[in-house]
């Protein structure tokens, strides 16, 4: 599937889709969206790029193996859960929040870091599975 149109478009679509996925991730707390969907969209962005430019190009672009995103995401999600236990002696997964909202992003709390963890795991899982299958097919 090496068409010029798709190839050109995908180069522009990749950053746009990635920004969109982050946007979906961040708005999740107030409006439809969240880490899971955001992660899926980011994964689709890379898969589209791989379709148009070939798997090797996408891999070069990623620099690291997507599988490494899984432990990073899991660790982040776990730390956001364990932080209140370590810091404040509260139960596991107690929500911690900064008192004032940040510009653009809004309220920031441990739930956001948890959601970023989910996002990373989903990207890692999806890309690992799809890249592995397409390599061995």
């Amino acid at each position, binding site marked *: 599937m090496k068409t010029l149109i798709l190839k050109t478009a995908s180069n522009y679509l990749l950053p746009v889709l990635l920004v969109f996925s982050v946007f979906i991730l961040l708005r999740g707390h107030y409006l439809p969206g969240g880490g899971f969907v955001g992660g899926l969209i980011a994964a689709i962005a890379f898969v589209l790029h791989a379709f148009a430019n070939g798997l090797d190009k996408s891999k070069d672009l990623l620099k690291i193996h997507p599988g490494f995103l899984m432990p990073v995401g899991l660790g982040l999600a*776990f730390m956001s859960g364990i932080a209140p236990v370590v810091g404040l002696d509260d139960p596991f997964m107690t929500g911690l929040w900064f008192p004032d909202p940040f510009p653009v992003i809004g309220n920031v709390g441990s739930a956001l870091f948890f959601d970023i963890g989910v996002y990373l795991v989903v990207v890692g899982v999806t890309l690992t599975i799809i890249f592995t299958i397409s390599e061995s097919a």
Partner: protein
Amino acid sequence: MLTAILLGFLFALFLVFAGKFFKGKLAVVSSIIPLSLFIYFASFIPRISSGEVIRRTYEWVPSFGVNLGFSLDGLSLLFSLMITGIGFLVYVYTSTYLKNHQYLDRFYAYLSVFMGAMLGLVLSDNIISMFVFWELTSISSFFLIGFNNTSEASRKSALTALGITGFGGFSLLAGALLLGSMAGTYSITEMLSMKEALAGHEFYILAVIFIFGAAFTKSAQFPFHFWLPGAMKAPTPVSTYLHSATMVKAGVYLLMRFTPVLGDTNFWNTTLISVGAITMLYSAVHTLFRTDLKGVLAYSTISALGILVFLIGLGSQGAFLAAAVFIIVHALYKATLFLVTGVIDLQSGTRNVTVLAGLRKVMMPVAVAGILAAISSAGIPPSIGFLGKELTYEASTHSTGLVIVIVAAIVLTKILLLYAGFVAGIKPFTGKLPEKFSEVKMPGPLMWVPPLLLAILGIVFGIFPALIESSLVKPVVTALSKDASDIHLALWHGFNTVLILSIITIVVGILLYLFLKPSEKLENRIGKLEPVSPESILKKLTYFFAVFSKFWTNVFQNGYLRNYVTTIVLFLVILVGYIFIGNSRLVIDHTQLSQITAYELAVTIILIGGVFYTVFTRSRIGAVAAMGVVGLAICLLFVFYSAPDLAMTQFSIDTLTVILFVLVLYRLPKYLVLSDYKMRIRDGILSLTFGGLISLLALQVLAEPVNSDIGDFYAKNAYLMAHGKNVVNVILVDFRGTDTLIEISVLAIAAIGVYGLLKLRVKSSDRPN
């Protein structure tokens, strides 16, 4: 006491690291362990004989009522002394018997594990911990029988033994759990006070059957006896220790231990008497046809175990007394005979009775041991064997019911056992020494002292029965809840029926020995009955089991994904459908339904069209694309019914699914027709049924009253407590965040699985065939 039990295990662990130091000349040092334990237990004799019971409880799993409760009474003490005493002699003997063996350290480790397990078994007051130790003895026995693991026969015998005794262990566990639920406690001491309640319980018979199952398999009672002759493949010290003196008596111990709890009922006594009598006669007859010394001894051991079971079945004070004495008698003479056999085997290289003769000329002390043991086994005065036989006859003549039959059975057994004892203990040493054995050498003292010591003890105890009367025998009878105050052991009982029976036994037995010589002809003759023996029947059963399981596996694990899916779906349809048909309360309230809008109708038509295209198209990619259409149509329905989060996720997932499918299907060959017309109709019907059932279920769920409290809680508190307006997302990342954490872990595991399956698969050239 816990230390005493664990010492064996600790020593075994220690040998793992320090084994190589114990292989050489230091091997005999390891016998310090059983010796010190023997002294430790012997120090309890004064306290036990004064009627005390020593108890120790260590908490183990208190929440389930499983504690390491140990109690030392007369019965446990007798067994503990046997385990450690004979253990000590066997340890000493082994150091020469297996001198410079490559795995001597391993052997000692197994032996120590066994000793610890056996001590734990006889000292446990809690049935569950007793079961654990019981299993440990089976496992250590498995390793010891299969010690010569390069021989196929050894491995096979080890497996048979493990299979039979493992089955018994299973039965013990079932019995223990049943008894525990019946009595409300796992402690045997506490059960003693509930004897009547247990005997009247509706599950009494079942519990007794389970306990019998355990005892009969362990103590090699008919028809489970055949593992014991096979177990003789083990090195002789093992046969001495496990398969004659201690482990096989665990079943007898179990029966004795439970006699005060479950005994004294008609079912208990009748079963034990019949099984014991059949076993003792059956295997005593078998000894006539054996030419292998160890074979003779194995069958005579089974017969002796039968006598013990039989005596427990009689259930009188006299019978328990006879059993207690006979346990000591048997341990002394049978261990001696086994050890003597081991010496003969090692020095002359054969165990064939038909060729062995005249060995007294080359190994006198061993001959003395053998002959003394044979005398004790025959019950000739002044040995302790005579005492044991007298007491046994006494108990059987005073039994109720078919006295004549019982007495005849026991006398016949004793005659045959006398023959067996003479064949094993006297035959190899008398007569003319054949030429080929003239070079046979005398073994080292560490090998002939242990059997000689045991044999002499058998005579000493016979002449001075007071030595064991109040120290060992009386406490056993007390432990079995019988009054032991009037017991007095003596060789001379006066001239009575019992003495006449004894004389008949000895005379007939000796005549039998003089006229019937063991020969291969006889052994071959009994071989013809092999196909109907329990062993062959069991072998056939296991064979059919294997064939059947292979067939069964081939039917279900056939390697075709489509068949797996069919099976799973069919099973679900039948199971869910069955429950559904009985309990359906499906009501659709037409007034509650809202109007169908035009775009809903349009999307539904697209959806149905997509489904039909997927099913009937002849292009794979087309089918996948149509599936994508179906998925997107569902997404749209989600949007209509205001579930935007769901719709977004479904949309992304559907996109990825199509991509995945295309990736996989892209490389496959062109569309192949793999199913015929009939199969398609079958699959179609199955799919329709399954889909219909799921739809009905969904409707059923809607018809159930909804508990909206939870939804209200989340809706109310999402912003107040979690600072979020999107309730779905707040639930995912906050309220039920731990669930999500686990879910993403599962996702990661799945990805690693896919990666592993596809990337790390073995190349076909490297694959072992």
